[in-house]
């Protein structure tokens, strides 16, 4: 079940993504309207992170394309922000909280310029929004899980983008942080920013998101929460893998078959 947006800011068209020729996402096709908070929901291993990474150009798709604001990613990179999964980095890395937030400015800085006072003020501002300004000088390994997530979000804010992709920002954070994050996301959406959040708690998904992308190797449903987030659709997404699809995927890996005919 798929409901398309009228004036999409994100268009994902027939996207198939493979790891060493084995497709893990099949023919994903959906659109998102501007100013919405969209939840990407699905069981473990459904390909949620893979979808985000492909949209961010980190994994080349086997077929299909992605358009942001009607353009390929390269042309609008400065308007796009990405928050990777928290576990994807080494939190023992010798940088401070402020350093990490400043990284959000690197894309705008170009090759040779270094962060100046203005960038620092901006970064402090973002930390303040996340309630983390008291921790600016602290080393990142001394943060709790919730604090680490806040730092990552502050870094995303520092990018001043128009569309945000966040991979599991609610995973392993305390209740206060979860509340702070969702308040922030709502403020951002009110300012006409678009936010795409990978999430795996069905209960809260209904409250948090106004748009839902239900995923399990394929797109089960995509559209406004009220219309597509039905028990039937959830059942379809969580009711086990499509066995045949997985088998065909394995076969393609084994026989080194191209995902698309050349």
């Amino acid at each position: 079940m798929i409901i398309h947006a009228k004036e999409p800011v994100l268009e994902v068209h027939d996207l198939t993504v493979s790891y060493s020729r084995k497709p893990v996402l099949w023919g994903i096709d959906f659109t998102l309207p501007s100013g919405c908070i969209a939840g990407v929901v699905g069981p473990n291993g459904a390909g949620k992170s893979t979808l985000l990474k492909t949209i961010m150009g980190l994994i080349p798709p086997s077929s299909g394309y992605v358009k942001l604001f009607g353009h390929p990613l390269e042309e609008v990179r400065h308007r796009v922000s990405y928050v990777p999964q928290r576990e994807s980095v080494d939190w023992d890395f010798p940088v401070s909280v402020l350093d990490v937030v400043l990284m959000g400015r690197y894309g705008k800085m170009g090759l040779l310029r270094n962060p100046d006072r203005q960038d620092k003020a901006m970064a402090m501002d973002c930390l303040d929004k996340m309630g983390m300004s008291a921790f600016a000088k602290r080393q990142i390994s001394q943060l709790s899980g919730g604090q680490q997530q806040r730092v990552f979000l502050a870094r995303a804010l520092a990018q001043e983008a128009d569309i945000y992709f966040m991979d599991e920002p609610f995973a392993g954070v305390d209740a206060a942080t979860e509340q702070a994050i969702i308040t922030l996301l709502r403020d951002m959406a009110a300012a006409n920013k678009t936010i795409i959040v990978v999430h795996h708690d069905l209960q809260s998904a209904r409250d948090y998101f106004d748009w839902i992308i239900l995923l399990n190797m394929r797109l089960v449903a995509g559209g406004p929460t009220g219309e597509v987030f039905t028990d039937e659709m959830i059942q379809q997404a969580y009711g086990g893998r499509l066995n045949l699809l997985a088998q065909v995927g394995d076969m393609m890996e084994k026989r080194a078959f191209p995902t698309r005919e050349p």
Partner: protein
Amino acid sequence: MQNLIDFFSFSDPNVRYVVLGTILLSSSAAMVGAFILLQKKALVGDAVAHSVLPGICAAFLFSGSKNIVLMLAGAFVSGWLSLVAIDYITAKSKIKKDAAIGLVLAVFFGVGMVMMTFIQQTGNAAQSGLDHFIFGKAAALVGDDLLIFSILAAVILITVGLFFKAFTLVAFDKNYAQALGYPVRRLDLLLTSLTVLAVVTGITAVGVVLMAAMLITPAAAARYWTNRIRHMVGIAVAFGAFAGLAGAYISYVAPSMPTGPWMVVVSTAIAFFSFFFAPKKGIFPRMYTQYKNQWIIAEENTLKIFYHLGERNSHFNGMRGLNELTSTREMERATLKATLRRLATKELLVTRNNQWGLTDKGYQQAARVVRLHRMWELYLTKYMDIPADHVHDDAETIEHILTPELERELEHQLDYPDKDPHNTKIPK
């Protein structure tokens, strides 16, 4: 030729000893190496090899002579210490494994270098024997020394053989082994000791730097020939033994050639060969499979053209010219012609006056491909809710890959359909 015969008659007792020694050393190292490789600890062997130096020197300084037993004991102790140090550093601080390995390697060897200069200052005549220990010299393996090394190598081979099943399980899945009640920690400890032992015995043949190759190169090569651990260890031992034999032979024919480095070169040659040519996993066989896939795709697509043309007038056996064929589907003429010729030799097509037509066998094949295509389209619309106008591209690939088993399953899940989503007939 005479060399070959002389060598393999083993009439020269020296040859006999050296060959026996190198084979035992290299095969026992390869055996332990297989498990090290599977545990992703390939470079640990390198660290241990460098780290035995201070132990050897200490034993030498202590005894003042080249007492082989004492030196082996010293080497064993300092090799062991280096592994403990690596584990301790990684467990108790934010330093990661790679840095711990490199640091321990360099520092232990540095300490060894300092001790070496002491030994050199004492001007001890037996010092040259010490050099063999560090840079390796298989030809120095004679008499009692050889006996000791052979016993050690045999001990390694037998111990690994006895604990084979347990090691396999631990290498494969530590947690599972633990749940089954295996003494995982003690097994780890045993494997560690065997690693150190293999390094200590192997170093005499190849030296400190090349020891890592004795451990992991045969195992890395073996990995490409099988997925079964049991077979992999066997193949690794065979490769190791062959490398040992070849190294001994080369330095027998050309006495100025060092045995150890040649052993490494031979086993690396085997490894490179495996990386490129091993069936299924090698680079070239994989490329060949892809090349063959291209042909399968082209052939099946061509057959489909005949089917589609036949569908228009229900005349599947009609003869078609090139122009007619290219009218339904974009295909390069050269490829098309080559494919037509291949299909004709497979008796799927008949050819007459530059025209081609399906044989009965060809018709069966064409119908099958079209059938798979349409069934997959149906599957996509029905089970994946993909709109009917989006399913064609995907089916274009999948039609070539579905095996008869998958076909049956698909058929079953779709409840033996006869119309695809575009409402065209699915051939039987």
